[in-house]
């Protein structure tokens, strides 16, 4: 079982290094990204930005809590700017999450059933 333990240790080390790679927010140290430059010049630029590393950790935890595959999370976060991640941190629970068109039929159906049962309408033919 020595090989299995070694394999596990390797996997753990590799995942740890991947995670820590993801922690380094800007691609090039010291250089300000255009997205951050734009955020700084906007009206609320004066307000201190939420710590980028904290916001990222926060969103990572929230995505995992929402059932997202942990191995997919870094890739998803890497596609967003710091300002976008900070915005996401506050809205994962409430922001509109487009899902399904089908349930709209459901609620109409429920209303029809209620109206039918109460006797307001009579569209469901009884034999």
């Amino acid at each position, binding site marked *: 079982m020595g090989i299995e333990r070694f394999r596990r240790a390797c996997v753990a080390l590799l995942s740890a290094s991947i995670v820590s790679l993801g922690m380094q927010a800007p*691609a*090039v140290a*010291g*250089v*300000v*990204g*255009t*997205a*951050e*430059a*734009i*955020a*700084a*010049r906007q*009206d609320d*630029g*004066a*307000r*201190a*930005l939420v710590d980028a590393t904290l916001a990222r950790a926060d969103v990572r935890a929230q*995505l995992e*809590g*929402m*059932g*997202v*595959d942990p191995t*997919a999370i870094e*890739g*998803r976060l*890497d*596609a*967003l*700017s*710091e300002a*976008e991640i900070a*915005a*996401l941190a506050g*809205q*994962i629970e409430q*922001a*509109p*999450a*487009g*899902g*399904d*068109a*089908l*349930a*709209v039929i459901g*609620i109409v159906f429920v209303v029809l059933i209620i109206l039918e049962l109460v006797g307001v309408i009579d569209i469901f033919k009884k034999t």
Partner: protein
Amino acid sequence: MIRGAPVIATLAVALTGCASSPPLADGLPASAPRVIELVATPFFPQEDYQCGPAALATLLVASGVEVSPADLAPEVYLPERRGSLSLELIGAARRHGRLPYVLATTADEMVEELAAGRPVLVLQNLRVSQLPRWHYAVLIGYDAERNVAVLRSGRERRLEMKWQRFAGSWHRGGRFALTTLRPGDIPGHAEPARFIAAAAGLEAAGQRRAAAAAFDAAIARWPNEPHAWLGRGNVAYADGDRAAAADAWSRAVMLDPHDAAARNNLAELLLEAGCLDESRRQIERASALAAGTSLESTVSESRSKIDATARAAARCQLEDRAWPD
């Protein structure tokens, strides 16, 4: 007063939403076609709750990316919410090398995008505001004579909705509309700030080639936009092309001498090139400009680094010895 402005704006939008939307023909610009339908737009019937991946795949494939909803689901789907957030659709579009461009909150830009041959992803609220049912669909056309919107939606390949019903659902969905552009394309109606911010998103996502094409296109169209030059410099620098980065960042500083970011980046480059005096001059200006903004800590780190290098260079490392005449 400034704090109240968004509230008033929201209220205004909410109030206009109460008035019934006009028929399509009333709001259609005279130059716009009366009937459009992008019939070649692909169709991906959605699986349960997977309208986000399906709608995004529709847009991406229409813009030349080989991708399926199944590929996109792990990039955008939130199992617990049974849906996808628009910000994550934007991120996923970037990962596939396309520039996600969020349209204005009026229908005009949607019409212009359709006229340019690009389908439009829309967020609809199919119920009432208090009991929302969010849904992504793709607008592929309209018919002003018959007053209908034509959509790829859910499991329907071709869904016609009365224009007012469509516009109402889009309004209740927060008027989110998105197109995915091939790198280098700029819509005729694009505003410089919004387009450059979209290109900056590609840069942040590490899509350097696509970002470079987008910044080049922005510079060709708006040569005096400092952030287009800043972005072009950033991408060149990340690619290791320091000469191009130096030119672009200098241009950004000349166009906007008050931009701390461009001066900071220029100072970093000058430091690497061994031009210490110039580097210090730029970082001092940057540091004064960044005070009190979100860039303050980044710029102050650059400054400490540059100052330390300058001190090390100035100090004689062998000062405890005696040297011959």
